[in-house]
């Protein structure tokens, strides 16, 4: 039975938020971080409060890096029980995650690669005005507490109000895993509900067992890991590329669809291989009701190297029930108007990937699905959107009688930052806030 009153709402429920603020924080003064946390715990929305009929307006989410847990006074013995990948952090595992070249942590912004990054406060808001109010309130709170500083922040807002689309114009949020115990029913074509232990610590996972947890249990139970990625989208370069590849609007849209595996409306190429079908795109009973092995084994509809087929190979990969992740986040930066030239302003997606095992779920997806050039014997390809591209990889579009091969695909995105966080349950937040000088001696911060 999922403890909805203890699990932070973040991975359980989508709030009706159209804006958000991410605050990346560092703890500079001993004890101040616990004071800061103590004052915020009650504002953190739980799965129960946010999911209930009277939506909670407290859409605060708090998560910590491993260095942050240490700064909070967690003892060395407990710190050592966290998995190695979390202890190292995303920047140290850049090669594993595949963030190399222009995506390398050396080029990241917002001090996300710094060991000084200790915590994130995610403030979801109904709209931009409410977000600005939340920012001001948190600013005042930081001043009042003292010793907890903002390393950087990011404002997010929907680029296409009323529609979950990202800057390239693709419809988003079409697939997500259904968690067993939430009462949600899997839509046609999706996996059956996934055991809660794949996303929350302290529950049975898809192996049928409950995996080992970091200690003490009060800290880890109902917690999850979050991988954060700030993905800049080069909208001008993307539109230029489409114009180079297609003479007509229809041809350009087809190339855009082949890269993604879905039309920008969301309609999947397996079900709508020739022509867009916007009604199909948003019909949640139909938009995922397809497979690859039987319906499109050679990728004549949806190329094997397209984004959705790489990042969710469905029936053409093993143990998909062990590779599920919950995505959260949104878009940042202003929309680039249609036909406007690239303006040099940063825009993109700032997303969190929630799971119970960063190495088995998130790192696998990035290492293999996104960045392995030999994925499915493609030979020299990476994911066109989340793989690290530097103009040396290709994109094959299967076609009869002869396939189309795009040589030297340009980079449409750049990863500008990333981090690993632990998203504790409410009891764990209280445990961290309380501290216990007698049993948890304050240790020197990592520098």
């Amino acid at each position, binding site marked *: 039975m999922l403890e909805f009153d203890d699990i932070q709402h973040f991975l359980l429920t989508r709030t009706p938020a159209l804006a958000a603020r991410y605050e990346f924080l560092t703890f500079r003064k001993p004890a101040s971080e616990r004071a800061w946390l103590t004052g915020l715990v009650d504002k953190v929305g739980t799965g129960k409060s946010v999911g209930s009929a009277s939506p909670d307006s407290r859409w605060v989410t708090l998560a910590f890096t491993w260095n942050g847990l240490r700064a909070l006074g967690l003892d060395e013995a407990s710190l050592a029980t966290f998995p190695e990948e979390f202890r190292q952090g995303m920047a140290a595992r850049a090669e594993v995650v595949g963030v190399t070249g222009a995506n390398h942590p050396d080029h990241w912004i917002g001090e996300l690669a710094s060991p000084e990054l200790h915590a994130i406060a995610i403030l979801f808001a109904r709209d931009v005005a409410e977000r600005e109010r939340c920012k001001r309130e948190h600013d005042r709170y930081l001043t009042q507490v003292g010793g907890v500083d903002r390393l950087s922040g990011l404002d997010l807002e929907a680029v296409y109000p009323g529609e979950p689309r990202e800057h390239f114009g693709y419809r988003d949020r079409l697939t997500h895993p259904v968690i067993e115990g939430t009462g949600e029913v899997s839509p046609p074509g999706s996996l059956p509900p996934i055991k809660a232990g794949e996303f929350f610590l302290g529950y049975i996972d898809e192996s049928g067992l409950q995996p080992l947890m970091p200690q003490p249990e009060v800290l880890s139970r109902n917690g999850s890991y979050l991988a954060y990625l700030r993905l800049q989208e080069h909208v001008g370069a993307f539109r230029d590329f489409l114009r180079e590849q297609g003479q007509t609007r229809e041809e350009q849209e087809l190339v855009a669809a082949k890269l993604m595996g879905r039309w920008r409306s969301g309609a999947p190429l397996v079900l709508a291989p020739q022509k867009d079908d916007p009604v199909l795109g948003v019909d949640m009973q139909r938009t995922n009701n397809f497979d690859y092995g039987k319906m499109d084994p050679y990728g004549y509809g949806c190329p094997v190297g397209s984004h959705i087929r790489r990042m969710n190979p469905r029936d053409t990969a093993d143990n998909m029930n062990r590779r599920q992740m919950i995505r959260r986040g949104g878009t940042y930066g202003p929309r680039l108007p249609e036909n406007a030239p690239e303006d040099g302003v940063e825009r993109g997606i700032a997303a969190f990937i929630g799971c119970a095992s960063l*190495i*088995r779920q998130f790192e696998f997806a990035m290492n293999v699905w996104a960045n*392995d050039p030999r994925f499915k014997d493609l030979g020299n390809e990476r994911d066109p959107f989340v793989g690290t591209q530097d103009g040396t990889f290709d994109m094959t579009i299967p076609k009869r009688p002869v396939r189309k091969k795009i040589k030297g695909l340009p980079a449409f995105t750049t990863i500008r930052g990333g981090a690993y966080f632990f998203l504790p349950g409410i009891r764990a937040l209280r445990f961290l806030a309380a501290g216990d000088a007698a049993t948890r001696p304050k240790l020197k911060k990592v520098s």
Partner: protein
Amino acid sequence: MATHVIPKEPLKPQVVETPKEADWTKPQAMAIPKEGYFKIEQGRYGPLFPRTPACHGFTIIAKIKPGTEEEIRQYGKKLENAVAGDSHVLAPLQLHYLRWVLFDIGQDKYFMYQGIFDTDFDKYTEDAVALFTQTGINTIFEKLEGFPMDWKANVPAFIKFLRDHQCPSFLEYGEYPYVTAVEVKKALKLKRAFSDMLDQMQ
């Protein structure tokens, strides 16, 4: 018998990245440094071992617990039956070959598990562990000394055991280098299709 002459000049280890255009017509050998790799390239669970002309693979050698030899041998028959029952049962491993050997060193008995396959083991390591469980191969591992008995809830410990007991090759050779099992099967399918076509044209 191999008919290719060994070159007079000493073989130098070469850094071989995933070749973009491998030439299967030219047999290739690769001498591999003691560590098992030419340069450290970090995978999820440790340094990656290179793809060689003989594809990816591992050679796991470990001492067996005394008195377990017969059980291990009997498992060979079980796996034979499992594959006979479902010929695709080992498909997730993308194998070319498996070789299981029991041998003596002094009074002790050792088990060697050698696999040649097409995927980087680091990438699909959890799938392999899941398959070991599904097919009961783990029952053999449980007879090996030092194997973590809590592996079911502690898969990273299983993976560490495999890596700790992996003995990298110092030479690998491929008569048709870098060719995957999928490509071999595609070529044979084509051959069969052409053969059928010629029959139809008689």
